[in-house]
Every structure is written in structure tokens, then in C-alpha cells.
């Protein structure tokens, strides 16, 4: 495009119309024009050399920023109020459509727009995709005879159409009749984009309910709601109760003081409660974390309260009381047990893990916040007051790059003992106060 412009400008300049051309053309913001026009004006004094004007100019040493702007990137300049939303995006696309009847550069523009969709937050909007497909000129790329259909007719455009559909697929957008009609108009029925559309229509409907643990499409924005959704997602027991131990402070006050209160939401089921009540106070329990849980595109970090497995010697054999059932004997007085052929309990893939007593999601991953969680848990589990709690926190929440990573190694045994003492002292103090 640039050499054609240069010729035009050169011709215009030779007639002294450079400035007028540039002003006539700035109706649509056009990234190439401003740098060229002043140059043209500057060169006008020297432009009477016809040879130099016909030769395409070598690329300028870039006075632009390191990240080269793509063609038409100006269309996606942030609007006056700085927001990037659907209206602005639609306006940008429509501006391109108005700019050029022949829609030159539409393939590049569509690729650019696909890249910009995420910034504008419209990647899941079907109408925007249809609008984007509308940018293609209609009826031009349809194969008209058998030779067109054998060889991929207009391959770049077909690839671009497939790219649009692929982005729809990646974001889980289901195409509709309008998409089909557009593709039919643009590429015809035997094209690859049309084939992809047909496949999308079949498999998307089949795979819509394939996730046995579905996550809702619109995740809640409130961190407490998101946390309770995450906890319910993880806990299979339906009788488990979600408790909010601490709500985040509203950020109304313009104080520069950091809000030390972040949200703490925990979950515990009645079986976990009774297991904790039965836990031997001699053995410590551990707060481990943070572990990451991804819900669509949001990452939630959670901590668990768990204990180690008892070695087989120390495991309590469940005592069957002698006089238990009034109606039938719960225990047969026979010496032999199950035969090996009927024993289905052993599963090589199942590894027994120690019991998990509770899970929580907290805003901050430090010991102070988690200590508050343990305090909150103590209300429903009084046995927790006597059990030493050891905090095994790996400071890295490595999923998101933004957070700082300070690795705290799990403390070696003597400091562990100290920590335990501190904790139990802390418990006692808190219990007494």
C-alpha cells in the first residue's frame, strides 16, 4: 500500500496537492498519512526530480515506538473517555467498513480485530463476530466453476474466515443462522469455513453438557461469592456448610492504610467435623497451601486443614457394641471372613490420603489470616483448641505472575516444635482471653 500512496502523493505533490490530499483523507484516521504528508510537504521543494519520486522509498528509520503498529491499528485507539467496550469496538469496525468501498486490507484488519477483541471484552459476543464476518466482501470469493472448487479459492480469505470461527470456538460461542447465511454469501457452501461451521454446529451441541462438574458461564465478581462457589465446587458432600469468617472491608475510605481485613470463607461437612472431634490431640494437624483452583479464567487459592494418616498399627478398629440392634444381629459369630475372589476393596489406583478436615479460601496467604480462620473453626470444633496446628505454607502462588513469591520452606523440626508451642500458647491465650 505504501508505494502506491507514495506515487499518488508524488503525483499530487507535483500538482501541489499534497496538503489538500492529506486533509481530504484525514476524514478517516489513517496512520500512514500524517508521517507521509509533512514529508511530502518538506520534500515538495526538492520534488521536481521525477526519478526520485517514482522509486519506492526505502523504509524509514522508525521514529515509532518499538512495538510496530499494525495497519489500521489507529482504528482501535481508545475512545475519548478511555473505556474499551462493545460500542467502541463496533464503531471501529464500522469505520473500517466505511473507509474503503473495496475493503482493501480486510484480512489484516480482521486479524487485528480478532486480537483486539479481548481488550474490549467482546470475545464472547456472537453479534460482534457476525459484524466482523460482515467485513468480508460478499459474493466475490464464491467458487463459480469446478476449477475453483478443486483448488482452494482465495486461500488467504478462507484461512481468515476459519480463524474467525476458530476464535469463536475457543471462546465457546455458538454460531447461529446469521453466521451461516453470511458464510454462505461470502464463501459459498463448499468452502472450508462453511465446513467448519457445520462441524461446529454438530459437535457443540453434543459437547455442551459434557462437563460432569460444570462451572457457570458468568462467574461472580464479588470475591466472597467466588470463594463460596469454588468451595462448593470442591466439596462433594451436600451437607457441608460454607461459613464466611471475615468479610473484606469496603474500600470507601480514601485512607492510605492498607485494608488488613481480607475475606476468609471456609467449608466443612458434618463428617469432617466429627472426624476432627475424634482426632487424637497428640498428633498435629497441618494447614497447607496455597493451592490453586482454576474456574474458567479466574484462579482461586485455597488452603486445607489436614492430618497425616495413622500408621496401620495405631488405627482404631471400630468396636461393634455387643447389644446394638434390637432386631437382628449386626455381627455373625463365624470364624471365617470374605473369600479372596469376592474382595473388591483393593484398588491399585486409590492411594489413601490423610483426612482433610476443612478447606478455606482467603484473600491473603499469610499466617495471620489463616490463624483467624482456625479461630473461627474453633467455634464449631471445640476439640481444635487442644490440637497443635502447624502452618505449612508455601508462599508461592505461582499461577499469577503479578504476585510476589517468597518461598517459606517448611520449618525443620526444632522450629516446628517452637511453632507448635507458640501455636498452642496462642490457642491457650486466646482461649483464656
Amino acid at each position, binding site marked *: 500500500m505504501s508505494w502506491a500512496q507514495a506515487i499518488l502523493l508524488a503525483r499530487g505533490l507535483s500538482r501541489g496537492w499534497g496538503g489538500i490530499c492529506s486533509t481530504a483523507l484525514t476524514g478517516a484516521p489513517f496512520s500512514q498519512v500524517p508521517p507521509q504528508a509533512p514529508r511530502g510537504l518538506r520534500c515538495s521543494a526538492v520534488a521536481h526530480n521525477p526519478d526520485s519520486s517514482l522509486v519506492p522509498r526505502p523504509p524509514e528509520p522508525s521514529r515509532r515506538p518499538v512495538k510496530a503498529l499494525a495497519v489500521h491499528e489507529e482504528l482501535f485507539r481508545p475512545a475519548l473517555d478511555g473505556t474499551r467496550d462493545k460500542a467502541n469496538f463496533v464503531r471501529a469496525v464500522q469505520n473500517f467498513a466505511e473507509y474503503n468501498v473495496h475493503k482493501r486490507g480486510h484480512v489484516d484488519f480482521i486479524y487485528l480485530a480478532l486480537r483486539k477483541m479481548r481488550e474490549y471484552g467482546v470475545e464472547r459476543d456472537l453479534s460482534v463476530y457476525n459484524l466482523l464476518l460482515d467485513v468480508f466482501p460478499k459474493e466475490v470469493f464464491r467458487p463459480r466453476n469446478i476449477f475453483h472448487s478443486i483448488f482452494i479459492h482465495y486461500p488467504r480469505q478462507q484461512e481468515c474466515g476459519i480463524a474467525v470461527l476458530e476464535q469463536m470456538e475457543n471462546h465457546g460461542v455458538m454460531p447461529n443462522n446469521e453466521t451461516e447465511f453470511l458464510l454462505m454469501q461470502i464463501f459459498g457452501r463448499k468452502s472450508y469455513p462453511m465446513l467448519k461451521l457445520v462441524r461446529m454446529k454438530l459437535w457443540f451441541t453434543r459437547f455442551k453438557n459434557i462437563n460432569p462438574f460444570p462451572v457457570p458461564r458468568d462467574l461472580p465478581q464479588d470475591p466472597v461469592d467466588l470463594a463460596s462457589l469454588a468451595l462448593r465446587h470442591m466439596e462433594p458432600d451436600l451437607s457441608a456448610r460454607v461459613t464466611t469468617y471475615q468479610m473484606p472491608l469496603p474500600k470507601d475510605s480514601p485512607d492510605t492504610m492498607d485494608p488488613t481485613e481480607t475475606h476468609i470463607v471456609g467449608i466443612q461437612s458434618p463428617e469432617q467435623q466429627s472426624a476432627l472431634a475424634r482426632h487424637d490431640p497428640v498428633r498435629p494437624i497441618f494447614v497447607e497451601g496455597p493451592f490453586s483452583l482454576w474456574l474458567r479464567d479466574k484462579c482461586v487459592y485455597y488452603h486445607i486443614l489436614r492430618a497425616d494418616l495413622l500408621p496401620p498399627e495405631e488405627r482404631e478398629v471400630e468396636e461393634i457394641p455387643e447389644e446394638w440392634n434390637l432386631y437382628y444381629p449386626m455381627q455373625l459369630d*463365624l470364624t471365617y471372613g470374605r473369600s479372596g475372589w469376592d474382595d473388591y476393596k483393593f484398588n491399585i489406583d486409590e492411594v489413601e490420603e490423610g483426612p482433610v478436615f476443612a478447606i478455606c479460601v482467603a484473600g491473603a496467604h499469610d499466617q495471620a489470616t489463616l490463624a483467624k480462620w482456625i479461630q473461627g473453626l474453633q467455634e464449631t470444633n471445640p476439640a481444635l483448641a487442644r490440637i497443635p496446628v502447624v502452618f505449612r505454607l508455601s508462599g508461592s502462588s505461582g499461577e499469577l505472575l503479578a504476585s510476589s513469591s517468597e518461598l517459606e520452606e517448611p520449618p525443620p523440626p526444632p522450629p516446628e516444635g517452637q511453632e507448635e508451642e507458640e501455636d498452642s500458647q496462642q490457642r491457650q491465650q486466646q482461649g483464656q482471653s
Partner: protein
Amino acid sequence: MSGCGLFLCSVAARFCRTPAAFTVSRRPLVTSPPSRAFAKDLFLGKIQKVRRRRGGLGLSNTMYARLGEVIGLDASIAVTLAAHQAIGLKGIILAGSKEQKARYLPRLASGEHVAAFCLTEPASGSDAASIRTRATLSADKRHYILNGAKVWITNGGLANVFTVFAKTEVVDSNGSVKDKITAFIVERDFGGITNGKPEDKMGIRGSNTCEVHFENTRVPVENVLGEVGDGFKVAMNILNSGRFSMGSTVAGMLKKLIEMTAEYACMRKQFNRNLSEFGLIQEKFALMAQKAYVMESMAYLTAAMLDAPGSPDCSIEAATVKVFSSEGAWTCVSEALQILGGAGYIRDYPYERLLRDSRILLIFEGTNEILRMYIALTGLQHAGRILTARVNELKRGNVTTIMETVGQRLRDSLGRSVDLGLTGKLGVVHPSLADGAHKLEENVYYFGRSVETLLLRFGKTIVEEQLVLKRVANVLINLYGMTAVLSRASRSIRLGLRDHDHEVLLANIFCSEAYHQNLFTLSQLDKHSPENLDELVKKVSQQILAKRAYICTHPLEQTS
């Protein structure tokens, strides 16, 4: 049947047909206890299995069953009576000391006082370990202080004498203190006993069922039934002993039902034919007659066994009778209502009341599911002990035993004819019932084989396999039914009783049906049998219970 007994039966029958009894059960909710009315009627008093010197009639089990047949016409009265004497005062009879019997039985037998049996609590139905009612010894060691609440106590509002089960602290022989259940006789005069309001029940609305609360009730130490800490066994004995009479009670009710329904079926005409000429209606009558016959036979056979000298333990048979008769009652009353069609649904006719009343039969005195477990487990316990030696040998790998077993299995699979000696020259069963007898013998033999295999496969852990135990119990119930029916039919023929060929018909029908049911059940007990759907059933129930809902998507749902 003594003359006295016959007289009593007629009195009872007349009472049950009176409008008084009828209205008692039809009242929307019982507002005033009807017990005083018919207790004074001397009706309540005389029908006891209390011995004559205590004022009772001294009826044997058989006579008691016969009386039950008559009482069964009205379910509320039957239940009130049963709660009074089959479980309420049975504790005193079985486990009471002489002084306790002398003190309480005369007035209970005469009907002056009414008894109730207090075992169930809100948190404890069959689980004895979760009983919360406590009895603590007072400081002067002469009283127990009773605290707790019992729920769903029949006669709770009327009773003066309660048999209460509470937890007491018992010091073991090695010094450890444990909580064990003890039975107490508690009189209302001891104070601290309050009733809740009478429960609004689906059926048997004439009987009084309510909560009973005990607050610091002082029970003298002399009122402990049996030993301190022995309450569990007392409870089990009481519960196991009263069950068999349900068979004859229900049979009596069914006989009356057949009369009423047949009257209707022969009178009503549709399409210019009586209802009784249609095949489906005839099938229903045959079903009712057959079930009534089997129930009667089983009940009286059990009663006779119980009356044998030495009082043998017939608890399995009693449980069998209870299960069969309760389920038979429910299906037969349902079918009878069906014969009447829309009229059966109307409250003006007694059918819907009978249906509502008969629903409780499947629940009280031990729910049918629990009793099936009991039947199967007690039988397997017995069989397991006998087979222990054999099983140990097999597990140790004794070659001769293994060869024997394998040879037996091969011969079984090739089909063998079983002859256990029921028919033939010295056989007890009459030749016209030979067919049924052969079926019974075959079933018994293959049942024995299956039980052996099950014990080998599961051993002690069979307690957890409830679906397997259910099948074992079903087979046992059918076998007992077949035995009872064959023996009664043979006796009828040999004695020359009237209509004995009808009995032979009923017997043969039941035996064939039970035989085929048993064959199917036994085939389900094989390992990896295609008829056994237990794995699938368990999977489905796991998935439903994980979500606590029905999880299939609606048939009109689309993914568009």
C-alpha cells in the same frame, strides 16, 4: 377349642361388628380415649395370655391366634389390645419376678389398668445404642430417677403401667463402667409422666399414639424387670414373641373381605355380565383366597410349634409369618379395593379404611426390611456354625473336600432329582400334593447349596450385603409357606374335612408360584449372574444420592 374360648370368640365378633367400634375408627381424630368404655366391657380384661390365677384366661398360643382372627375385623381395637398385652405386659410375664407378677398382672388382666411398651425414641428406632433416656440411681439407692422422652407409644395416653427401657450405668466384672439398657415397670402414679397430644395417623385412628415424657420419675428398685443391664435381651424376647398372631388376624380380616367383595362382584353387572365372570376379577379373588390360606396355615403351624412342650425358639418362623401376612394384607386389600373400582375409593365403604389400617402392618413390630435381615442372618448364623468345619477345610485346601465339592457341583449342574422323603410310601404328604412336595424338596436342596456358597464367598461380611440377605429371606419365607400349606392340605384330605379339594388347589397354586419365584431368586444369588442387577442398582442409587435429586435431564430439554 374349649367352650369358653368359643364363647369369647362370639362375644368378640359381636363387639367388633358393633357401630361403636366402627365409629371409633372413623372419627377424624380421637378426642376422648375410648379405652375405658370397652375395658369396662370386660372385653379387654379377659383376652390375656395371663394365667388363670392372675385373673387371665390362660390361653395357649393357638387359642390366642384364633381369637386374633376375630379381633382383626377392626384394626384399631386389635392394635390397642396388642399393644396392651402382646408387648405391654409381656415383659412382666416373661421377665418379671413373682412379686411383680402378683402386683401388676391381676389389675392389668382385668382391664383396670392399661399397659404400654416404651422403647422408641426420636433418635433411636432399632438402634439400641442410641437410646438417650437415662435412669440414675438415687442417693439412697432405693429409687431410680428416670429422665427422657419416648415417641410413638401406642396406648400412651391411656396407660397406667409402662414398660420403659432406659440406659443405666453398669459396673462390669472387670471394673469398667458401661452404659447398658435396663427395663423398668413404671406406673403413672410415680409422677413426672406427661403425654404429648395424640398423633394424627393415616390409619388405626381409633388407637391412641402419643409421646411420653419422663421427668425425674422415681422408680423403685423393685420395679426393675430382670437384671440391671439386661434390658436388651428382655426387649428382644418381648418383640420376638408376639409376632405370629398377625398371620391369623390378617387372615380373619381377609376372609371377611373376600365375603364382602364377592357379594359385590356377583351383584354388579357390566356389559350384561357379572363382574365375577371376568378373568381379571377372578384372578384377584384367587389371589386373596390363596394368601389367606397360606397366612392361616403358617400362623397356626407356628402357634402349634410354640405350644409344644419345652417352648422352642420359633422366632424366625414368627418373623416369617409377620412379613408374609403384612405384605399379603397390603396387596389383597388393594386388590379388593380395585375390584370395587370407584366405590372402593369412597369413604362410605370400609375398603379405604382397611387399606389405610393395613399399611401400618408393614411398619410396626419390626419393619419388614429389618425382619428380612433378621430371618436371613439368624438362619445363616445357624448354618454357618454347622458348616464351619467344612469351610475351614476348604479354605485350608483339603484335597478330598475340594474334590467332593466339585463333584457335587457338577452333578447339580447336570440336573439331579431330589428326594428328601416327603412323598412316596412312607411320605407324610398326600399323593395329590406330590407335585408341590417335589418342588419344595428341590427348592430346599438348591437353597442349601446356595447358602453354602454364600457363606464361602462372604463369611462374616455377609451382614453388609443386604440385597443378598433379602433374597435369602424371600426364599425362606416361600419355603415355610410351602411347608405349612402342604402339611395343612394333607391333613385336610386325610381327615376328610369339607372342601379339601379346594384346599389342594390352593396349595398347588401357591407351591408352583413359590417354586418359580424361588428358582429365580436362587439364580440371582449366583456369582456374576445376569439376573442379578445389584451392581447397577447400587450405582444408580449412589449417583442419585450424591446429588440428592433425580438427575436425568427433562425429556423436553434441547441443546440448541
